């Protein structure tokens, strides 16, 4: 295992499968009456969140606590720390406190890479700007595998704001490593220039992709994109790229619908879809804790730990 988890693309197939298999073990712990392992007793995990994200922070916090680590939540948002020297000084502070792992969420792409150069502990990227969110991709893969029994050869369709989505970037890289085939669906304005280099197909036509999708993952459309000329109106976006009951009916029978949350119900996903049996949205949250336990375990204490970057 690597020292840091910065990009889903850094994981080899074996490493990714090890995380998923370890997460399956962790899931058994979560199902037990006493949901706690002593594995990381005496180790310190810092949640360093420069951006609000209650669900991701809570998920990491619970994961670390279930492994008996000491957890510090360091919310940098709103404090004097907002940019620049702040990150380095924060890194030095965490270093001085003896953080074994730093889980960082940051609005700027690449901030975890910078942090990894300034601390001795492991750095886990919990979402950096419009770059990556590797633990989200891992929990998504875990969810697909547990629902559909395999990843190899799965047809996975990601729909929405690919341009700004860290979830999309991490999923494309990880799913490729694990043998799934990814199709990106979005209005052309929300597909990045340079996408031709990605191991994924691109389509502007959701309806044509639906019948061959084993998985449809809907991405959140950020408020700030609406009204920034990426698409004419919320209604038009929803009509062309939203997943409603009629579109859901076009999916093969076993297919599942995913969403990393938080959802804009009625925009990219209709309520009846989000709440349908095909939806894995709640499972994704549960699996998130198991996957993050596995990542922390493997980076910090696990049998595979100790190797350098």
């Amino acid at each position, binding site marked *: 295992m690597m020292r840091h988890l910065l990009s889903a693309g850094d994981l080899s197939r074996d490493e990714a499968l090890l995380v998923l298999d370890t997460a399956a073990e962790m899931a058994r712990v979560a199902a037990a009456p006493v949901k706690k392992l002593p594995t990381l007793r005496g180790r310190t995990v810092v949640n360093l969140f420069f951006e609000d994200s209650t669900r991701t922070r809570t998920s990491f916090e619970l994961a670390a606590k279930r492994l008996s680590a000491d957890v510090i939540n360091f919310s940098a948002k709103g404090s004097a720390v907002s940019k620049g*020297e702040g990150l380095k000084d924060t890194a030095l502070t965490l270093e001085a406190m003896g953080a074994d792992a730093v889980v960082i969420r940051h609005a700027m*792409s*690449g*901030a975890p890479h*910078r942090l990894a150069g300034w601390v001795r502990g492991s750095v886990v990227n919990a979402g950096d700007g419009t770059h990556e969110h590797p633990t989200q991709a891992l929990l998504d893969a875990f969810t697909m595998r547990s629902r559909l029994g395999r990843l190899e050869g799965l047809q996975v369709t990601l729909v929405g704001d690919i341009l700004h989505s860290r979830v999309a970037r991490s999923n494309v890289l990880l799913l490729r490593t694990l043998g799934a085939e990814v199709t990106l669906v979005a209005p052309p304005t929300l597909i990045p220039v*340079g996408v031709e*280099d990605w191991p994924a197909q691109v389509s502007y036509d959701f309806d044509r992709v639906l019948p061959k999708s084993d998985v449809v993952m809907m991405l959140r459309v950020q408020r700030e994109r609406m009204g920034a000329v990426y698409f004419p109106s919320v209604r038009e976006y929803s009509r062309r790229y939203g997943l409603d009951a009629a579109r859901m009916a076009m999916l093969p029978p076993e297919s599942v619908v995913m969403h990393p949350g938080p959802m804009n119900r009625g925009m990219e996903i209709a309520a009846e879809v989000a709440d349908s049996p095909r939806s894995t949205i709640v499972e994704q949250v549960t699996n998130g804790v198991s996957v993050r336990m596995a990542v922390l375990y493997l980076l910090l204490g696990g049998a595979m730990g100790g190797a350098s970057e």
Partner: protein
Amino acid sequence: MSNWLLRNVTILGAAPTDLHLADGVIAEVGRGLATGGAQVFDAAGLVALPGLVDLHTHLREPGREDAETVASGTLAAALGGFTAVHAMANTDPAADTAGVVEQVWRLGRDAGHCDVFPVGAVTVRRRGEQLAELGAMADSAARVRVFSDDGHCVDDAVLMRRALEYVKAFDGVVAQHAQEPRLTHAAQMNEGVVSARLGLTGWPAVAEESVIARDCLLAGHVGSRLHVCHVSTAGSVEILRWAKAKGIRVTAEVTPHHLLLTDDLVTGYDPVYKVNPPLRTAGDVAALRAALADGTIDAVATDHAPHSLEDKETEWGAAAFGMLGLETALGVVAEAMVSTGLLDWAGVADRMAVRPARIGRLDGQGGPLEPGAPANVVLLDPAATVTVDPGSLASRSRNTPYAGMTLPTRVVATFLRGRPTVLDGKPAESGGPGGGR
């Protein structure tokens, strides 16, 4: 007055000869010159070029003396083989009045390491709203001929047209930082496969090319001189080639870093590679090299942009744009252009001294190395190499992208009007005022 005899020097690739510098001018050129009272410098194996002229230098004074001063920046220039630099106008306060340009010019004269020609801002406070007093700067002691809002694009077409027209009165030139602002809102790096992967907001080539195209058409329409700063894309080269073929009076510069470095260096998010315009692709680098070789791009200009450590030791998105260039320019050009056979030393002299001096309308800079000409000379060792050590740079800042890189050629000595500013690759002891122009 200094009096130097450079023995057995190679001038622009010709057979070795002697070069006698006396009373600030080149006194004699020829083999076996009598020593007379001159200090003799054994220049066997060394190449002499006219002192280099930089069209694009950020000296940061006044305003950011923590990053660079006129004195430290011009010393870096001398060590890089320059005898003249154009100091960009984006100081604080901006160089938009005769007072500020005269201050910068005087600081340069007092430091004495090389001539400093201030660039005047095109618009008041470089805000792109109203013309600065261009005539006052032209008439000042600083004798400004190059005007630029560099860092900002003069994107208003009417304002650009008026600026182009207005500077004709004193044979000035507008040096445009070509960047369409709406297309580059919050842009962080070249838009392409690397930006898509890294999730950094793209700076598309078209944002540069569209402004260059417009400005060429404007310059042609009003018959004015246009200079394009730091050309960075293959498409820009095509537009320039077209414009020159049409007879439009446009000149262009390319930075050393755009001749050597590509956007895949951004992969580790180290802001030392963050620069504006951004590092582009290998295809762009090849096109820029070819354009410099065939003269479509007239000059190499460093865009030397010192930044303090705290402005670079940050997240990529929070870091300042810019990289050092003066002390490594010649080595990078040697690597990109000479080692590849694209330019010989005469070509380097043309692109780094002769043409930049002509574009800036500088008298006494840019050669030729002939009797009677001002003795602005750089001696370089083409057989030597230099490994770049940020800690040993004369610049106050350390943001060089070439740290640890070994580059061909070494600047051995620089003479400013016959007086050595650099000897044996180190600052010459004499120092003192250079007398200005």
